[in-house]
């Protein structure tokens, strides 16, 4: 079975992200940055909370960059799975290390 250019199977069709979508992603990332800085600079009395919040927002930003800019949303799912495996590996190692430190 041969495919003409307009009749490719779904997984071979290339998704082209529009300029507008890229711009919207940037706006979301900038808003998250502003929120982080505002919490950090004006919420100094909420110290432990602000560290956690800053990391949480950073993680949201990273997910947005990976999902939209790095095209994970439209790529084969194998890339998303690989990213998740690496992320879980790293986070579990970091958490297990810190548990040891917290129990001293």
């Amino acid at each position, binding site marked *: 079975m041969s495919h003409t250019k307009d009749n490719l199977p779904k997984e071979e069709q*290339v998704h*082209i*992200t*529009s*300029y507008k979508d*890229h*711009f919207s*992603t*940037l706006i979301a*990332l*900038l808003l998250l*940055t502003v929120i*982080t*800085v505002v919490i*950090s*600079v004006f919420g*100094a009395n909420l*110290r432990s909370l*602000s*560290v956690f919040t*800053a*990391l949480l*927002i*950073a993680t949201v*930003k*990273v997910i947005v*960059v*990976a999902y*939209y*800019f*790095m*095209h994970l949303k439209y*790529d*084969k799912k194998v*890339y998303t799975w*690989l*990213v998740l495996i*690496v992320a879980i590996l*790293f986070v579990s*190692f*970091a958490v297990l*290390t*810190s548990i040891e*430190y*917290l129990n001293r």
Partner: protein
Amino acid sequence: MEHTSAFSLPNSGHNRDAEASKMGMWLFLFTELLLFGGLFIVYMVYRSLNPESFLLASFELDVAMGTFNTIVLLVSSMTIAMSITAIQTGDAKKSIFLLYTTLGLAIVFLIVKYFEWSAKIHHGLFPGFEVYDGLPPGESLFFFLYFFMTGLHALHIIIGGIIISVVIYRTKKGLVTKEKYTLTENAGLYWHLVDLIWIYLFPLFYLIH
């Protein structure tokens, strides 16, 4: 030029595999993530041992400059993503323009970094300087990690800039086209990774008040 490659298949006339190239790039990015990941764990452990010193030392960093550089990198991530959109729609000129913009933003980032570093070095906070040697152990550790991690990150910015320059050159020569833009895509992936690392470096070093 044709048939010079040892691996060209009899009937294909080429040996490109866009999907394999992309997978190769992602596997490389994972090694980069684990490289910085290890450094982040070093940071985490030492910070939990010296919370007060890390806090005090972090006040030396300029939040305004850090925020500015964060914005610069986020915008550059958008421009390189847009340059892929441009080449996919066959607009090589626009793609090259957007790549130049990304390169320009990379240079802006490095210039700001230069001013930040020289201010710290001027205050003697670089490892080996007198003030640095006189700091309490936790604070000198903060500055060591700051210089090492942002230095390694800046090295990635420089390498990213070189890669983007190669993409510009090859797009100009017509080697990157609407049908064949894997190079632009992979350069984009690398550049986004550099951005991702900064997204964590920024709050951890500048915003821990």
